[in-house]
């Protein structure tokens, strides 16, 4: 085992604050949707809106960071070793002698499955959440821009897209949290995301 510094300070801050905001927004969002009662509708709606703005600001910084540091390249999809990685998670992971086919380095932080999943989040789920959310928030003013109004985009449609995005995010979150426990010890990846230092298995 050797230790490599993978996740920089901003990256870790971005990851964990985004995690907190997304969980907050899922919990409050589904209350606003009427799925359950927890904080009270008014409180849920207020927190949801405040968290939305915080997340938008965070995303603006994160996008800037990704482009200025060139880290966006981490999400370029690849099929290399993708079958091997899938086979590992399906079978190899239960075998103490099997090894993860992918080696994490500072230049390639994510295995090919991660790359695909994160790219889907960044290019589909996030924009869908963001755009439908802003349309939802400003629905009342859309008429003035010729987008909404009587015959235009209806709130029901906007809400449908926003709810769909929320479910996708929820499903991503469940799988993502689980995969975080699949390091060489259950807490290894989580520690790495906290400290920035990842334990890298040596080639044997």
């Amino acid at each position: 085992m050797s230790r490599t510094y993978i996740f920089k300070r901003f990256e870790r801050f971005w990851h964990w604050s985004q995690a907190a905001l997304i969980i907050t927004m899922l919990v409050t969002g589904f209350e606003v949707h009427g799925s359950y009662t927890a904080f009270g509708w008014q409180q849920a709606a207020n927190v949801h809106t405040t968290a939305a703005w915080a997340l938008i600001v965070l995303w603006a910084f994160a996008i800037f960071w990704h482009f200025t540091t060139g880290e966006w390249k981490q999400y370029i999809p690849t099929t290399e070793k993708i079958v091997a990685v899938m086979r590992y998670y399906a079978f190899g992971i239960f075998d103490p002698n099997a090894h993860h086919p992918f080696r994490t380095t500072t230049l390639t932080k994510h295995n090919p499955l991660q790359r695909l999943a994160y790219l889907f989040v960044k290019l589909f789920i996030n924009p869908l959440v963001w755009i439908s959310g802003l349309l939802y928030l400003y629905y009342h003013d859309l008429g003035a821009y010729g987008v909404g109004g009587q015959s235009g985009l209806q709130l029901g449609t906007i809400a449908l897209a926003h709810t769909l995005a929320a479910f996708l995010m929820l499903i991503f979150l469940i799988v993502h949290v689980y995969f975080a426990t699949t390091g060489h010890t259950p807490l290894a990846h989580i520690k790495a995301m906290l400290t920035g230092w990842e334990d890298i298995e040596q080639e044997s």
Partner: protein
Amino acid sequence: MRFTNLLAAAMVAMLFTSASSASAQQAPSKLLNSTANHSKFKALDREFDSGPEVTRACLSCHTEAAKQIHLTQHWKWEFVNPDTKQVLGKKHIVNNFCTSVASNEAGCNSCHIGYGWKDDKFDFTSEENVDCLVCHDATGKYKKPSGFAGLPVTKDTEFPPGSGKVIKGINLRDIARKVGPTLRTTCGACHFNGGGGDGVKHGDLDSSLEAPGKELDVHMDVKGNNFTCATCHKTDGHQVPGSRYAPTAMDKGAAQVRGKGGRINPATCQSCHGQGPHKQAKLNDHTGKLACQTCHIPAFARGGQPTKMAWDWSTAGKLGPDGKPMTIKNEDGYDTYMSIKGDFVWKENVKPEYIWFNGTVKYTLMGDKIEKGDKPTQINHFEGSASDGKSMIWPIKMFRGKQAYDPVNKSLVITHLAGNDDTAYWKNMKWEPAVAAGMAAAHAKFSGKVDFIETESMWPITHMVAPKGKAVGCVECHSGNGRLEKIDGIYIPGRGSDHAAWLDLGGWAIAALGLLAVLGHGLGRFIAYRRNR
């Protein structure tokens, strides 16, 4: 220490000098609102035997007042709806309370702002028959007892004759010399008692508004804003704005600014509060679809006085064990059954029903074809929809009735209820002669048969505005089976019936399956780990 003592002494000295100088001055006289003191007017310094005599005295100075009154709905009891062209007003409509004025004028017209409208021969051009005092009495002593066609009683009078009951005469001189602007009590003398008693008709207007606290009405609060009715119903030339025959359902105007005229109705909330009265933008978004009243009047009949919610005339006529007309009261002392009127339902603190309303009210008038069916006859239907661009969501009181109609001619009927004669229902309790007399008085044809039909009437809820902290909370509409559950045509976040079932079902199912899958996977890893240790 010494310094403080000195300071205290100086202050005490100052206090004394200022007190003594103040007492030396003349007390400033109180600024009066009015330039006229009616008790100093010669025309009023005399005894008056009748209402018209007082009016003649009033008109000797206020020369044009009666002409103004003659143009009002208050005087004519008639209103032609400019959109539907229906001829409305108390004179014409049949409601589902005491049903109609025609043939009952002597009783009903104690609430007319005139003197002597006892039948269909009343002279609507008479100036001296305008009743100034009923609106301008400031003593609270002016009374127009039922049965006198709107005339006050100036000498002790036995009524009904031979009953042994005496109505005390009132001193018109005293009242005329103390007239003033309208008060909550003067408007309320009739409007709080619509339907024949306190709170009966409207639900948002009853005697609790004579001196309300802040909780009941944030504007009329006697310790706060202390509005009178006329503060909002800002009257010009005796024309009182704010009619429920043609209400302003949607007001897109800005708050009223002097010099910027053109406001049709100064009684709307928007005429003072404008379009964006909330600090939070999301709340202001609601003003596009919701009448202010929808959130700001959480319930009506909140002042301790219940309102009638239903009236079933079909059960009238049952006599008590003594063979005489009876009255059954509930534990709070309100009539739930009267032989002469039938069954009533009273309620307090009532959550309104909500509808789309565009300001057009369509009446079912006498002569309009009505049919017994699944749906009650709509006495006055508030029109509107989510898509007509003119409607807002409004709170209403829905008043449910069952009343006499002519099953052969299929029409509402005029019933002669009040009167000391042998056809009046309240005296004889026989429907056919009472309806025959009523229809004859209205010059309408009657088959001779009486049956009962279910009816509904709608009353806009617009008074009893609660303080903002008591407004309807978000979740009361943003939820399944909330207040607006029946409002169609819009998406309400949180209202389950608006959701796409496939998405909610599918979303939760896939999320649950995903959770099961990862838990299963994790369990597999755990077992593999234990086995290989």
